[in-house]
């Protein structure tokens, strides 16, 4: 086993470490859950943590690997969340198996988020830097406002849509309103579980890590490092940027589905600019392009506000101070030199075996 680990490419070894970390965390959490060792507030956060981890990893694909700042990632989460909720309700009578229905409706959420991202990808391919950030920010707001005016209901004949109010849905007597504009989606069946979240994280990691180490991932990183050089070796910017962006959006849609089905009701307001920024903070704190650390950052920063509850009114102040301190210390030359020492040793070891 040890020799096998040594013979692996460093990137493969790093990927396995990431998978291992997630599996270990899942096993510990599952054990604590069945042992009744978790407080109820922490128990309620397990699925959101999983969703945020997926969001952080998928945003890292856009921000870290593609090198483009996106401020509307919560918009894709929102699209995924609401379409998944509607899909879950629509499938209630045909698919009785809960986990299967969860997977199917999350898949619907992912597909819709992907379709919406095909619209956003048009400016993404033409803009860079601040301008792209502004467009994605606007996208997040537009999605929030659109969902705020949509009414969806379901009766025996199928789904009904309206942009006016619940009454204009024109449903039969047995009709049930699924999405009530600014009141959000209500009466959601709670299908999400820690295991589902864990599996989604593993799927996301498999997709993102394989993408990064694939031909396409290399091409995306080459475009990020130097667009002109990349084009001069024959890389098509359109194709690969689109691939990365749409993949990231689909994963965000899946995470949205998982997140929404952890609650009995959910509002479009939940997926606003603050959520997009929160996810970006996970990525920046974990390190752009660093998948493993963005997972840790997402989990830690989701739990942190809960743990800081004892500070009451000063909660957000302490949260901000912790963030700033972490950023200062991880940027400290002494800290970097300390970790660079380990990296150096690993590199020379690799040379000897090569």
């Amino acid at each position: 086993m040890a020799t096998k680990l040594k013979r692996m490419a460093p990137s493969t070894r790093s990927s396995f470490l990431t998978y291992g970390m997630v599996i270990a965390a899942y096993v510990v959490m599952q054990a604590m859950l069945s042992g009744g060792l978790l407080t109820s507030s922490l128990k309620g956060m397990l699925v959101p943590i999983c969703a945020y981890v997926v969001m952080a990893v998928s945003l890292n694909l856009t921000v870290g690997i593609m090198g483009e700042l996106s401020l509307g990632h919560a918009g894709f989460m929102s699209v995924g969340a609401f379409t998944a909720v509607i899909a879950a309700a629509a499938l209630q009578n045909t698919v009785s198996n809960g986990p299967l229905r969860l997977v199917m409706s999350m898949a619907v959420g992912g597909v819709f988020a992907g379709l919406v991202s095909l619209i956003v990808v048009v400016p993404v391919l033409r803009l860079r830097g601040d301008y792209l950030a502004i467009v994605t920010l606007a996208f997040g707001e537009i999605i929030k406002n659109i969902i705020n005016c949509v009414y969806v209901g379901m009766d025996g004949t199928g789904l009904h849509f309206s942009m006016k109010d619940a009454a204009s849905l024109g449903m039969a007597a047995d009709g049930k309103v699924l999405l009530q504009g600014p009141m959000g989606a209500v009466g959601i069946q709670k299908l999400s579980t820690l295991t589902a979240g864990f599996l989604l994280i593993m799927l996301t990691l498999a997709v993102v890590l394989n993408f990064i180490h694939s031909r396409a991932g290399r091409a995306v990183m080459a475009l990020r490092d130097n667009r002109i050089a990349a084009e001069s070796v024959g890389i098509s910017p359109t194709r690969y940027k689109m691939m990365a962006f749409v993949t990231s959006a689909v994963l965000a849609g899946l995470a949205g589905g998982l997140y929404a089905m952890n609650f009995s009701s959910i509002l479009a307001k939940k997926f606003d600019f603050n959520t997009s920024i929160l996810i970006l903070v996970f990525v920046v704190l974990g390190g752009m392009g660093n998948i493993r650390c963005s997972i840790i950052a997402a989990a830690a920063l989701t739990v942190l506000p809960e743990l800081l509850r004892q500070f009451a009114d000063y909660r957000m102040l302490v949260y901000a101070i912790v963030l700033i301190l972490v950023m200062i210390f991880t940027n400290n030359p002494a800290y970097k030199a300390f970790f660079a020492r380990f990296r150096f040793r690993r590199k020379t070891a690799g040379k000897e075996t090569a």
Partner: protein
Amino acid sequence: MSTILSVENLNVAYGSIHAVKGVSFDVNEGEIVTLIGANGAGKSTTLNTIAGLLRGKSGSVTFMGEDLGKIPPHKIVSRGMALVPEGRRVFLQMSVQENLEMGAYTKGGAGVPADLEMVYDLFPRLKERRRQVAGTLSGGEQQMLAMGRALMSHPKLLMLDEPSMGLAPILVEQIFEIIQNLHKAGSTILLVEQNAQAALSIADRGYVLETGKIVTTGPSGELLASAAIKKAYLGG
């Protein structure tokens, strides 16, 4: 000798600035042809337009009998043209070997290890540093890397944009020696240079550009000897 690249009456403009005004020239198989001229003469603009990174307003670029006018830059590479862009544009965060592998992007496949050896034979310095991140290389090494990366695609035409820019004289000498070696091995090269003396000393033919127009052309020996050229570009 057959013509490999032919540029006809090329006009390129950046907005209202007319940078290249009706430039025409040919490159024949096995030749080193150089475009020389001062800053802002339109040399790099011409080269970038040939590679498809810029679009001309009018005129045509024909490569191996095919009009390149509508072909996007990433597809031009697979037709056998490689550009080493100005200013040593390497992928700074990738290792030397990864940079070279990116050069074989359009080809891929089984030939890559042999091509890597070919490049390492040309640039032994790169072999020593193949695991090093490209951002830590010196300027001259980055230039070698950019050239090596272009060679990985086995170009029928290699275009070099100011390979001597910002390099120490001894490195300039080395780079030009390598260009000569490539030429001897049969490569066709289009070289854009401000360092007219060095460029003309290795080229077969030269074109002199001045504010977007070709003012003189001829075999390098003649250009080197010409009094007008000497006065304008060679400092005396």
